[in-house]
């Protein structure tokens, strides 16, 4: 009976979609040649596709709900269980390390190139994760700091001939500085008001870069940005790619290390507390403003470093690379990967950045599939692909003491 009802429901849905998509999918008007093209085949296609899509959609939605009822707490993601288990942890990490070490030597340059892009996004994602995932501040203008880093390298190199390795720490400081400067006036705002103001700052920085010709060379951008050197030695293009690849791997490892340490530090716990309940947090004596500002500034630091790598890899930057879409992509990396979870963000970046590259096979439908996947992942895994696991703090010693007390 249930099946019959479901089929009936899906038939209705399919019919609804056939009506819904009729003008756009079926009719194609050429106003210049004055012809109308009715593409009836599309109508049938929409009907069939939505029928089956709605069947599977409903099936998974129901299954998801059943699961939710069954296991409330212990659905720790597979990968976390793997990492927590000592027997699997080492071999697993070994395999991952071997894969990434061998990667640039096994695959052609193109794959190294897009892997670098993806790893830059891992860095950006981990940085934004501090702001959005840990401290719970929605930042839609994260790309501003990315631009600061990229332009810092391009301009300092152009005017003063500073090398990659000199600019990297400078830009990190610049990022922090900009984070504090932009964060200071706006961090009093809450929720979506903060989001829209940060979005504004992102756009302001881009527009200024676009229009202030004498400073940033305007929309023509800055070209011939040198690749990083290895103790003064400049590789050829292919080896440079490999070299940048390992630099990014190093930076990503450093980021993971820092973020991990931060998360378990006093300030990290303050962020999480602030995200979960601002008022309780203030009542406990945490300086709300300072805590938020550190999150904002630290996030900006990683973005700036990501920007330096981006500029070094692309060798040409212009303001078009720093539009609001970039901020949105980074935010998607964090949320789809799993807010607050470092492994999730890494997975999110790799999937989100590599997927469109490999989807080039279906180039036209690339962004369509990408958009649909975003919706699907969010509907079925609202906490992201790999959700974060709260660290459980246990006080074994005291418990034992209490135990002993009650026993005696």
């Amino acid at each position, binding site marked *: 009976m249930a099946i019959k009802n479901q089929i009936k429901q899906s038939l209705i849905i399919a019919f609804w979609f056939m009506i819904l998509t009729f003008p756009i999918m079926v009719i194609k008007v050429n106003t210049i040649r004055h012809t109308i093209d009715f593409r009836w085949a599309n109508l049938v296609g929409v009907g069939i596709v939505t029928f089956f899509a709605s069947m599977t959609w409903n099936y998974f939605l129901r299954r998801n709900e059943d699961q939710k009822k069954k296991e409330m707490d212990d659905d720790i993601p597979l990968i976390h269980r793997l990492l927590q288990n000592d027997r699997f942890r080492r071999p697993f990490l070994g395999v991952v390390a071997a894969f990434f070490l061998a990667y640039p030597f096994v695959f052609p340059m*193109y*794959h*190294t190139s897009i892997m670098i892009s993806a790893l830059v996004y891992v860095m950006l994602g981990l940085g934004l994760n501090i702001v959005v995932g840990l401290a719970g501040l929605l930042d839609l203008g994260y790309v501003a700091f990315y631009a600061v880093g990229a332009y810092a390298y391009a301009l300092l190199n152009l005017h003063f001939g500073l090398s990659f390795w000199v600019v990297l720490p400078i830009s990190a400081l610049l990022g922090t500085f900009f984070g504090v400067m932009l964060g200071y006036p706006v961090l009093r705002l809450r929720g979506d008001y903060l989001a829209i103001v940060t979005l504004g700052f992102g756009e302001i920085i881009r527009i200024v870069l676009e229009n202030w010709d004498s400073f940033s060379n*305007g*929309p*023509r951008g800055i070209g011939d940005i040198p690749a990083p050197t290895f103790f003064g030695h400049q590789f050829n293009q292919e080896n440079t790619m490999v070299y940048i690849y390992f630099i990014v791997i190093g930076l990503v490892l450093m980021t993971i290390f820092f973020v991990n340490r931060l998360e378990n530090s006093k300030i990290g716990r303050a962020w999480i507390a602030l995200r979960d309940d601002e008022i309780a947090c203030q009542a406990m004596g945490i300086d709300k403003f300072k805590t938020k500002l550190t999150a904002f500034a630290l996030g900006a630091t990683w973005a700036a470093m990501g920007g330096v790598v981006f500029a070094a890899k692309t*060798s040409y930057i*212009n303001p078009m690379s720093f539009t609001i879409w970039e901020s949105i992509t980074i935010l998607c990396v964090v949320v789809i990967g799993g807010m607050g979870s470092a492994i999730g963000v890494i997975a999110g970046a790799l999937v989100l950045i590599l997927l469109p590259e490999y989807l080039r096979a279906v180039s036209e439908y690339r962004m369509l599939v990408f958009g649909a996947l975003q919706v699907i992942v969010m509907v*079925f*895994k609202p906490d992201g692909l790999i959700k974060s696991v709260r660290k459980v703090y246990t006080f074994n010693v005291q418990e034992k003491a209490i135990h002993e007390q009650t026993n005696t």
Partner: protein
Amino acid sequence: MKSFFKVLAVAVLSMIVFAAPGFASDTVKVASAGVISGDLAPYGISALRGVEIAVEDLNAKGGILGKKIELLVGDDVCKPEVAVNIATKLVSDGAQMIVGHVCSGATIAANKIYKDANLLIASPASTNDDLTFSGEHPNFFRTIANDGAQAILMTDFVKNEIKAKKVALIHDKGDYGKGQMELVRNNFEKMGGVEIVLFEGVTTGAVDYTAIVQKIKRSDAEVTMWGGYHSDASKIVQLLKKKRVDTTFFGADGIIGDNFTNLAGKYAEGVYATGPNDTSGNPLYQALSAKHQKKYGEDPGTFFHNGYACMQALAAAAEKAGSLDYDAMRAAMFEITIDSPLGPIGFDEKGDVVGAGFSVYKVIDGKYQQVN
């Protein structure tokens, strides 16, 4: 859903393996790169179709150096960072010569990869002066005249034919549009006698341009020059007419072609624009247009014939050099003269085209017609 990620990982890995290039082949691999998706897609697609038809024609005659041509296609969405990725992909896939890219910014970024891989690149549409004047792109050639030449033509025409005293320069803040207007401004300043009353940028795709139109009206500009693409231009032209601003609209090759006249409709009447020379009298040009019409059911787009000429030039250079060796081919590029749909063309020592220039067009009865 837990297995979802695993399946995805397997899928991605297998794609990587399958995407790895095949080895040693008896074809010549030519890559066509440019923007073929997004809002600038019409420009890139027109060039790509030119290359496609040129490859068909060359293959029918036996290909290059007796080998068939295999065409690789890359889409850079007009973004420098994507262009770099695409360029590395094309080089990894074994491309031996490149036609592209379309947007100048993308070309500049991608050429670093091509230069390092010792590949010749011929662009049908990148008009930025830096590409040939800076000397940093020795492997670069183009079958379209550069922005500098176009700007000189525009300023001369405004001063000598329209005899305007006051001009307003409006651009779309992009590298193409703003660059074009800056060149025009420099030329006017050098020439003297023409006052620039306005130099402003507008946001592309904005819902409303009334304020800037009022500003043009207040500035009493006799000619409004536009650096940018056709969509924003048609919005501004419409408003200028509706608000009865007495000014002549003058654009560069970004607004040449039917795209603009279709969009602006009756408001397009009287608009001037510079564009590649009208070589529609050329028999090859006509034959190719007919071929395009037959294959795609519509008239060729803006850069179709330039794309065809690029492919012709690279093939001719390879034949002349007798090999696909970079130095030999580069040397041959300077010597060849090809019978292209743009007329007989060659290349000067900077890599700029000789023999194909720009002319001024005016919209008369809904169609662009050459006026000089």
